[in-house]
């Protein structure tokens, strides 16, 4: 029974991973930017939420309404300025710049918040509560809610991309940004919107992570970034459902690893990631990652 619980837990946490991953996938798919600071942005969002809650004393769920749009705006500005500048130079430059950002953010957080980890307390029964199915299967409320939110967000994003005017524009720019220019689209603005969406979703995921687990300055790279990327690689680029599947596979692999030995949780996930990278770089659902 412990195994069944573990797998269910893995599936649910996969939702959170997918939420982390979809922003990364979007930025890579649209502007070919591998944002090495992606995980740190989630942590920043979490810390901002903590800060706001501490200062203004609003209920936790309200912090989403402030932080997510704020991060989205930050994403647009960062993309139009620094990231676009790096993109204009070369792929190597974007990697170096985002890596630099990651280090600066992490050390900045270390300076101001110390290395202690914090959680976003909700005071609600939501966080620690759970319900039982049957006699032995336990499902936590929070992971379930996070999973549902993740699916809803992914559905919304998928719909936006496939059916809306701007979503179509994003896809067109991703295919051929020069041709899109010839059709009147300013691709820098489109990139900005894509970045805004990516930052918004990662902020959402970051705050959720802060509620589910602890936040600390290095969590961005220690866990989040690598997990997000693992989810993207396992699920394959170019498909949001692939990202969800990737997150779920990662989560399940980790929980199975934890069942084998508690310290093997993270390692198990990485091994699956590396295995997929070797055997099937396109991931489990199409679209290539190879040169």
């Amino acid at each position: 029974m412990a195994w069944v619980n573990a797998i269910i837990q893995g599936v649910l946490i996969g939702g959170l991973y997918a939420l982390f991953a979809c922003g990364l996938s979007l930025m890579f798919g649209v502007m070919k930017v591998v944002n090495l600071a992606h995980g740190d942005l989630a942590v920043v969002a979490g810390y901002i939420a903590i800060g706001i809650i501490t200062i203004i004393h609003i209920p936790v769920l309200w912090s989403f309404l402030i932080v997510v749009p704020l991060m989205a705006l930050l994403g647009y500005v960062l993309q139009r300025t620094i990231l676009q500048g790096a993109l204009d130079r070369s792929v190597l430059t974007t990697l170096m710049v985002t890596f630099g950002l990651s280090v600066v953010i992490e050390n900045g957080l270390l300076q101001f918040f110390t290395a202690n980890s914090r959680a976003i307390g909700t005071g609600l029964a939501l966080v620690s509560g759970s319900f039982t199915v049957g006699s032995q299967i336990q499902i936590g409320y929070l992971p379930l809610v996070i999973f549902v939110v993740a699916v809803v967000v992914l559905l919304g994003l998928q719909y936006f991309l496939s059916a809306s005017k701007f979503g179509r524009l994003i896809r067109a720019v991703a295919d051929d940004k020069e041709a899109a220019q010839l059709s009147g689209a300013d691709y820098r603005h489109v990139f900005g919107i894509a970045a805004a969406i990516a930052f918004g979703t990662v902020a959402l995921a970051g705050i959720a992570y802060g509620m589910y687990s602890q936040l600390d300055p290095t969590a961005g790279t220690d866990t989040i970034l690598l997990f997000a990327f693992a989810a993207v690689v396992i699920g394959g680029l170019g498909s949001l459902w692939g990202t969800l599947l990737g997150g779920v596979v990662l989560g399940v692999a980790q929980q199975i690893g934890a069942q084998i030995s508690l310290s093997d949780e993270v390692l198990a996930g990485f091994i699956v990631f590396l295995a997929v990278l070797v055997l099937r770089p396109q991931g489990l659902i199409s679209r290539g990652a190879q040169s």
Partner: protein
Amino acid sequence: MSLATESTARSAENVRVTRSSRNVAWTGAVALIVVVVLAMFPYIVHSGVTAILVQAFILLTLASMWNLLAGYAGLVSVGQQAFVGLGAYAVLILAIHGASPFAALPFAAIACGVAALPLWWLVSRLRTGYFAIATWVLAATVMLIIEKFSSIGGGTGMPLPGFTGMDPTLLTAYTYWAGLAVTVVALAAIYLLLRGRLGLVLTAVRDDEVAARSSGARVGLARMLVFLVAGAGCGAAGAVLAISQLQVQPSAVFSVQWTAEMAFATIIGGLGTIEGPIVGTAVFMVLQQTLASYNAWYLIILGLVAIVVALFARRGLWGLVDARINVRLFPVGYWLRAEEDRPRRLLTRPRRGLHARPGGGR
């Protein structure tokens, strides 16, 4: 006559291709003098200074390797800390079995070069961005695996055996010379590699990969060689690190901070030139020593400077100097010397606004 044919016609008559500028003779002598002077430091300065210099040697070796990877082979690796750690652990393992850590150093480097082979097989087909992340995951994975072995310290690490009974002054001196030796060998190896065919292949690929491939350049082989050399180099630096710290802790030797430091030093100093990492390391050490008491600040400042340099001064501080004076301490290019003219360098990025005109333009 068209532009292209005129200029080649004129140039074929009275030019010759030489290997180096007039600089190399005396820069070689200066380098030798510098190394000799540095070697004498343990006799001249006190151990605090040599300790700092050991850190500088480690960083310079790492930065040179990262520069080789990213600046010449186009491989942005965020996982070189894997080799730093492997080098440290190689020394540890050999020392546990009775070897002197100093004697173990070269073997540690070789072991890392060999270990790089399967790792290359895992990541070699990946495109730039994926390559970066994959190397990061690899490094994290290597650390997690190593931490499982309690015989070499598990998750907490263990002290490095093999120094019992050694005079502390002698130990400091030997550590210093080990660091110096590794750096000199690393730089010499990189210089010789880039001077030869490998350098030619890499520069060609850097300019135009498709053209390079169709000219027969073995691009994959060249990149693999670079990855192996960088693995060995970072491993050697890791070995020196273990010796200088007298212990090996996984979280310290496998920290991604190593990549941050080597990347920043290289970017700020100048990506794509051998001199760049030297300049970058110097800047880095100065900043680190000045801001030592301010903890994470030096990394924040260095990170910001690296971002600015990457965006606006693509060739780093050395690039700014090089653009003015045209000097190369490590000449790896070719010079085109016309009999009458001043020598003009080939294979550099064209300066803006310069374009050949056929005789009698508008």
